[in-house]
């Protein structure tokens, strides 16, 4: 098991290790630049069409280890440019860097953040007709032709898709029932982890109760908090490092992102002791997108890179490297082969429902959800 062969789950290690980011966050705060009101059109009209041509090196900003390094090398070689990488460990971290005035050519927001950035006029318009390979996405996956977070996908191209479910040790717990209720399983008592993520944890409570995943209603939130309090005796921790917890035995059951579970398949000595299920009450779905910030210095290179990433051979390499499926026609077999032991990791067209995405709320709503999350976490 060579550490290079398999990427760590993108949200796992880095998210638990925000220590390093603290320095940067404080740096931004003391510099104060995050607070300057910025003219959204300071760098030109974000609606201007982008010429698809090399206009400099690519300044790339994504989750750590989320593209096969061989794909980067191929791009650098073919177009004679360098890919200058930096990584974020959460959407909030990404937004903080953008707000602090850092300029990137290509970023990868989730659906919810794509909507926020679009509405804040922080993203350049992407003309799909200029991308040779865009048809493999928009032609094959109707959902992304006009998603809720970005009308007609005018500013984004979907990159990956995933669901949230339950990963567990079959050898320790046995078979499950396919419900969020399974987290309360008596044989997993004291060895259950949930993700260290506000929306995901409140979302599982909401789905179990048959509520909206993004609810900000105070009464709903109270019911959710009560439900999650009853999970506390079973709970060992909040951690987004799902697969390490399962592999090292600290968890026998954990809330998990499908892609992380798929990535774990290659690391487990005996994958047959592991299972991944998606609850019948519903599983939150999400999608990461390609997006070009409005202040990008090299938007042309970014367009070329998106097109290059959508080539079938690169899609295949990336899927095998990161374990997340991509909404690209023709890539389904590759992913199905990869997650053969965990068929529920597959994300199909019928999984993509607006009401299963985490949505943006009003500022009052977000505050109510924050308070609920504090109560869940602090007990």
């Amino acid at each position, binding site marked *: 098991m060579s550490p290079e062969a398999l990427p760590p789950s993108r949200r796992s290690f880095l998210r*638990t*290790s*925000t*220590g*390093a*980011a*603290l320095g940067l*966050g*404080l740096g931004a*705060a*003391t510099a*104060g630049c*995050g*607070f300057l009101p910025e003219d959204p059109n300071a760098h030109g009209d974000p609606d201007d069409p982008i010429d698809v041509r090399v206009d400099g090196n690519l300044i790339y900003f994504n989750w750590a280890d989320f593209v096969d390094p061989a794909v980067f090398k191929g791009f650098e070689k073919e177009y004679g440019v360098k890919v200058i990488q930096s990584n974020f*460990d*959460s959407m*909030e*971290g990404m*937004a*903080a860097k*953008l*707000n602090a005035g850092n300029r990137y050519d290509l970023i990868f927001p989730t659906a919810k953040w794509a909507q*926020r*950035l679009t*509405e*804040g006029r*922080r993203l350049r318009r992407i003309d799909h007709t200029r991308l040779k390979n865009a048809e493999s996405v928009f032609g094959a996956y109707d959902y992304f032709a006009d998603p809720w977070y970005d009308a007609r996908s005018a500013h984004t191209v979907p990159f990956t898709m995933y669901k949230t479910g339950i990963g567990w040790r079959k050898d320790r717990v046995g078979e499950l029932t396919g419900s969020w209720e399974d987290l309360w399983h008596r044989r997993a008592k004291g060895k259950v982890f949930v993700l*260290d*993520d*506000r929306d995901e944890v409140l979302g599982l409570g909401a789905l179990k109760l048959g509520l909206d995943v993004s609810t900000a209603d105070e009464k709903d939130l109270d019911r959710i908090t009560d439900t999650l309090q009853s999970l*506390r005796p079973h*709970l*060992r*921790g*909040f951690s987004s490092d799902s697969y390490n917890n399962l592999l*090292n*035995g*600290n968890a026998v059951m954990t809330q998990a992102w499908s892609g992380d579970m798929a990535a774990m398949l290659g690391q487990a000595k005996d994958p047959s002791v592991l299972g991944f299920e998606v609850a019948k009450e519903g599983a939150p779905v999400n999608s990461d997108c390609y997006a070009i910030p409005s202040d990008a210095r090299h938007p042309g290179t970014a367009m070329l890179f998106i097109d290059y990433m959508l080539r079938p051979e690169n899609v295949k390499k990336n899927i095998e490297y990161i374990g997340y499926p991509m909404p690209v026609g023709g890539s389904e077999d590759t992913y199905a082969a990869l997650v053969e032991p965990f068929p529920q990791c597959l994300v199909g067209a019928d999984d993509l429902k607006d009401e299963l995405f985490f949505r*943006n709320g009003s*500022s009052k709503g977000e*505050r109510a959800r*924050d*308070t609920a*999350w*504090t*109560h869940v*976490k*602090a*007990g």
Partner: protein
Amino acid sequence: MAQRTRPDGGKPLDRADSGKPAPRTDGAEPLSRPGRGASRSRPGPSAAGTRLWTWLMIPGTLWMTGFLIASLVLVAALAFGTTDPLGNPQFGLNFDNIAAMADPAYRAVLLRSLGYALLTCVICLLVAYPVAYAIALHGGRYKNLLIAAIVVPFFANYLVRMYGWSVVLSDDGPLLRALRAMGFADGDTKILQTGPGVVAGLVYGFIVFMIIPLYAALERMDVSLIEAGRDLYGGPLRTFFFVTLPATRQGAAAGCVLVFLPAMGDFVSAQLMGGPDQIMIGNLIQDKFFQGQNWPLGSALTMLMMAVLFVGMIGYLRRTRKDEAEAVR
């Protein structure tokens, strides 16, 4: 740099100068060491010297103002702010965040953090004292080597060390496996995700801050005091409690402050070694900054934590001042 060229016409510059009866003319000072030259003949600072010291203070003052006071003011101001939809913190005059502090959840977490930090301090003191004592008084020519052996591992990033420590403490990790083999633990015993696990992490993380000041205090201590204690027929224990311990009290106090403050605000240990019932105030602040992107609420929490620590620090300072006063008497 003769005194005679003083711009104020030779009047004494400060209290150090006044009251000295003999005018310090070149070469006429009886106490000046011979052969050092006339320019060295002044016990008090000259005008040029004072000016130099003023200049030398500038970088430190700027540093303190810029990185301590200004950032503190910024944090305090932000506690009254709001955020825009993109998470940009906005200054304002909004008391929601302050009102939120009344939530009992914060009080419970704050008390827990205080408890963990205090416990960490006590354990660090108990563990570090013998170590520092052994090195300072019995280290001989290996002293520096031993101190290096303690300090060098701390060159590694704090997070990496803590992550490694969490592996050591994990259910299938070496520590529990060894305890199980020796019959001290059964299959259900766990250290991770327990209070002791978090405190173990904090102790591991900060103990060097206790060892170093204790070592410095013990090293500085006059060994003849111990000998004097023995000469007065004090046994080793008596000598230790009545001579060594009081003589190193300042070092212990400094160590306690150095351990307590970071332990109180730490979030890595509770994150890696703690479970849902071990959340510390640092974790909540971290959440507000990095997950909720609610910097204003994070700032308000930071101010709350600092207020609690401030009260403690005042107590400590008054106490040490009293100690010093007694020592002088």
